Structures are given as structure tokens and as C-alpha cells.
């Protein structure tokens, strides 16, 4: 019965207005949520357990502020919740994050890892493949369907010309797109279980960072929209859609 892990990340609510203060993003007053793709990864992990047995461990990396996403996962029914952190760390780069996660996955004897296809804050899509690389495991990304078999899984991966149904034997890292399953909701009993659950904290040896962030800048302001009124403007609108917006 597989040891299943799901990587979940705390990110600013995707509706939050992100402000820059000085030359750094100011996240002091944003609402935090589990990264939306991770919700699908969590559901896939739960489905895997329902199909093949085993245990599901939700893992996040970060300070105690990140415990909330683990509690959210616990409320949905995962067996264990693990946070990877060492108080000497701050702002880790991708290399460090992946190394730390890999250390925890090894300690937990994980056989299959689910994660979101990208995190809603950085959008880098590097964690899943990076973890697979370090583990020396198969990596399938952006899946939009999954079926569970005795020794592995069969996943649906979008390709330019259609979808590829792909068999994967374990161990593997599977990164999930949205939409192929309906993430289950917590209920009050789950929330009470989560309240009582202990977060296990694991440390790790990580390499030193070779990068540093110099500054953050806000995205360029979007140009304001144009308004056309009356049937007489139809040709202008069509021309604009065709020539400027390139949508028709």
C-alpha cells in the first residue's frame, strides 16, 4: 500500500490585491489560501488512497504561519501533516526548496508525490519536476485525468495535438492541472480533527543559495478598455479584434 505525499503551498488569495512597498512585495495584509492547483493534487492523492489504500501525508514548507494549509488538508482527511522548516532559513530559492522537500519525502519513505502544476504566487512550475529529478523518479506534469492501477497510475497529459494517455509506474511525481476532479470539501468533523491534529515539523540539510532577489516591481498597468456604441461601429470593432487583439 503506497505511501502517498501531496505538496501543498500557502499563497496569497488569487483575488488579493498585491501591493509593493519600497522595492518588496508587501504581503502583510493579504489573505492566504492553499494554492488552487494544489487542491486538485490533494484530491488526486485522496482518490489514490481510496483506490489503493496506503496513507496520505500533506507536506508544506514554511514557517508556522503555513500550518493553516496543513490543517485545511487535515480537515479534508489526510492522515499526517508535515511542515518542513528550520528557523535558520529565510527566503529559500527553488533549489533549496526542492532539496528540503526531498529530504522530507525520503524520511517519510514516500512512493508517490502529488503536487499542483504551478503555485499561484510564483507560477514557476519547477517544484514537481525538480523533486522528481532529485529523487531520480518519473515525472509527469500538468495531468488532466488519472486512473489507479495496482503498480502505478495511468494519467492523461495534454499535448498540442490532443491528449496522451500515459502509464506511469511508481515511484513518480505527478503534477496536477485543475478541473479533472472535484476537490472534496471539509466538514465540521474534519475541521475538529484538524484542530486536534499535530503538525510534525521536519528539518533538512539544504545547499546554500546562489541567487538573491534584487527588487520587486508591480506589473505594468493595463491600458484601459475602449468603448464602442451603436451598430455603426461594428466594422471598427471587428477590425480592432482582427488586427489589434488578434482574436479573430
Amino acid at each position: 500500500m503506497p505511501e502517498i505525499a501531496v505538496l501543498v503551498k500557502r499563497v496569497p488569495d488569487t483575488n488579493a490585491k498585491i501591493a509593493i512597498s519600497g522595492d518588496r512585495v508587501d504581503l502583510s495584509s493579504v489573505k492566504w489560501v492553499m494554492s488552487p492547483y494544489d487542491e486538485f493534487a490533494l484530491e488526486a492523492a485522496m482518490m489514490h488512497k481510496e483506490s489503493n489504500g496506503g496513507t496520505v501525508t500533506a507536506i508544506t514548507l514554511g514557517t508556522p504561519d503555513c500550518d493553516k494549509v496543513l490543517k485545511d488538508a487535515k480537515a479534508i482527511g489526510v492522515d499526517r501533516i508535515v511542515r518542513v522548516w528550520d528557523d535558520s532559513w529565510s527566503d529559500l530559492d527553488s533549489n533549496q526548496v526542492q532539496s528540503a522537500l526531498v529530504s522530507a519525502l525520503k524520511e517519510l519513505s514516500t512512493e508517490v508525490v502529488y503536487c499542483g502544476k504551478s503555485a499561484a504566487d510564483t507560477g514557476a512550475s519547477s517544484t514537481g519536476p525538480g523533486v522528481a529529478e532529485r529523487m531520480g523518479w518519473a515525472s509527469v506534469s500538468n495531468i488532466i485525468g488519472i486512473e489507479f492501477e495496482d503498480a502505478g497510475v495511468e494519467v492523461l497529459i495534454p499535448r498540442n495535438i490532443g491528449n496522451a494517455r500515459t502509464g506511469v509506474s511508481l515511484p513518480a511525481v505527478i503534477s496536477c492541472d485543475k478541473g479533472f476532479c472535484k476537490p472534496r470539501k471539509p466538514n465540521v468533523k474534519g475541521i475538529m480533527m484538524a484542530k486536534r491534529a499535530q503538525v510534525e515539523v521536519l528539518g533538512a540539510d539544504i545547499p546554500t543559495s546562489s541567487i538573491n532577489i534584487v527588487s520587486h516591481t508591480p506589473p505594468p498597468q493595463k491600458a484601459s478598455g475602449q468603448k464602442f456604441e451603436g451598430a455603426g461601429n461594428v466594422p471598427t470593432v471587428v477590425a480592432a479584434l482582427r488586427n489589434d487583439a488578434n482574436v479573430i
Partner: protein
Amino acid sequence: MVYEALDFYDIESECTEEEIMVRDMVRDWVDEEVIPNIEAACREGRFPEEWGKALGEMGVLGMTIDEKYGCAGMSYVAYGLVCQELERGDSGLRSFASVQGSLAMFPISAFGSEEQKMHYLPKMASGEWIGCFGLTEPDYGSNPGDMITKASDQGDHYLLNGAKMWITNGTVADVAVVWAKLDGVIRGFIVEKNDPGFSAPEMTGKHSLKASVTSELVFQDCKIPKDRMLPSVKGLKGPFSCLNNARFGISWGAIGSAQACFHSAKEYALSRIQFDHPIASYQLVQNKLSWMLREITKGQLLALNLGRKKDAGTWIPEQISLAKMNNVDMALEIARMARDIHGANGILDEYPIMRHMANLESVKTYEGTHDIHNLIIGRWITGIQSFTRTL
């Protein structure tokens, strides 16, 4: 339009993590399942059965009752937050949950025998069995103490005779907690839907709480076994204890309705242009929005403080009266103001305003009318009861 709750005094920071998790669970469900479907349900005049099931699955029915009976044993503040989110959807939905949890499950849990608790509560918590609460009669509303419905002891069973009116969930209920006089003393009885001599025709023609089922309960020599009487309570204390819990929930629920109306009014005022500027830029409109914020904030502080007292067991019923009366009153006034800010659009079912306004008219009356709560508080202040002429 993403819903952003008004939380001017950061009430959220006063709540525990699990209270917020429960609130968000219900908030998301209301956004996804209720708000897109509520107008249709009102138009058809029905309570969608699947909502009752969903409430059971979420575990919010009777959620303050002990885990031993399949409930969650959560705080009253958590229950309040659930009522708030449900009523942001619709007062009829919150009514369903109030009746099930506070009026039907609560008396069984507080005054029932162990067998009654084990038999009824788990199935009611899961939403499999729906409950109702029969106190009001055609001739006795604010004055239930003079009720006519009576039970008579027939040796191996009781016979119930009489009629109840305005009973939420009556027609769809599997279990009715009915208050009737046995030898002149008010007692609670559990009536099941198939008991002989019991019927529950639906009352139609409501302009308010259209998505909630309201019924008569009719008892004609209704025969129930002896073990269906609630053993541990006599007199008005029974129904009034239930009402205290439901009224507490309403004091939070009304904040939900007020929030829905405020949110809609704010968005509308910012986007509606008259005389070249958004109407939100005019002082008269800002004054209205400011009044709404002020009243919602006061109502939140009242409800939270009362909730903590409920959890600590240090409350008095008059405090519940104040919160129910104040918060429903402010919500109704906010609904009316929001209707005004929306202009003609305010009367359309595209906006939630008129529905909340019409619903709140019922909420103002049920669970103790606005003025009955004034009289309860008046008695607390003066020590003189003014309900009847016999002083």
C-alpha cells in the same frame, strides 16, 4: 463580483482557526450552491431538498451538541458564524438550520432520554431526518403559555389534540417536537410523520421566506407511544430554552443578510453614474453607506460578545433578546436603505435586496416579535412585566 465581508473591527482575529474554517466552508458553499439558485427556489416556493442534505454532510446541523450523538460539539460562536453565512444566502436557509439544530435537536439533546437522543440525534445531524418545532397556534402567537393543544394520558399511549400554525419545515419534517398541555402543564412530545391522526398541510401565499416551507400541524386524536414525551422539562422553560438558542443564531444570521445588502449597495453605488459621477461620490449616499457600516459593526460586536458569553455559560436571556431585536432591526433598515441606493434596480431579483427585505419581515416577527423583546428588556429594567394586564 467576489464577496468581501465587511469586518471593520477585525472580528476575524477574535475567532479561533477552526471557527474561521467552519465559516469559510459554509461561505464557499453558499457562494457556489445557494446564491446561484436561490431566486429560482423562491419563485417556485420550495426549499431545495439537496440543501438539507448538504448541511448534514457539512455537519452544521445541531453542531453545538455532543459528538456522542453524531454532532460536532463546536462553539456557539462557530454556530453563529454558520448562521451568518447561511442567512447571507437566504433567511429561509438559515431558518431551516435554526429549526433543525436549535428547535428540534436541541430539546431532544437537553430534555430527552438517552434512548431518545441515540435514536433521533444522529439521523437529524446527518440531515436524513428533518425536524420541526410546534409551539405557535392560530390564536396564541406571542402568548404561547395559553396554548390549547393538549395531550391526554391513555395508559399505554398519549393522545394529542389541537393545531399548530406557522411551523417551519412542518410538511417536510420526519420528526416534530410539539409542545402541548398534559394536565394543564406544558410538555414536549416527539411526533413522527406517520403517527396516526397527524397531518401537516403546507401554508401557501407567503411574500416572505418563500424558499422555506411553512405549515400547519394538525392533531386529531394523534396517538403516540408513551416514550415520546421529553422527560426532563415542564412548563414554558422547555420551548423558551430552544428559542434562546435559535434567537442567538438569528442575531448572527441577520448580520449575514445585512452584509449581503451592504455589499450589493456598495458595489452598485460605485458603478452607477448619475450627474456624471458615481452615486457613491455623493455625500447623501456615503452617509447611508457609513450608517450601514456602523450598524453592521455594532451588530457584529454584540453577536461576538454574546457568543463568547454563550460558550462560557455566563449569558442571560435578556442579552439574547437585545441581540436578536437589534440585529434584525438594523438588517431590515439596511435592506431598505440598500433598496433605495439601487434605485429601480433594487426591486429586481437580479439583486438580493428585496428578497432579504421581505425575508427579514418574518424574522422580525418570529422567535419573539421585535416588541416582545422590548417588553422582555423593559421587564429587566423596571422589574415590572407588561405583557398582560394582570400586573
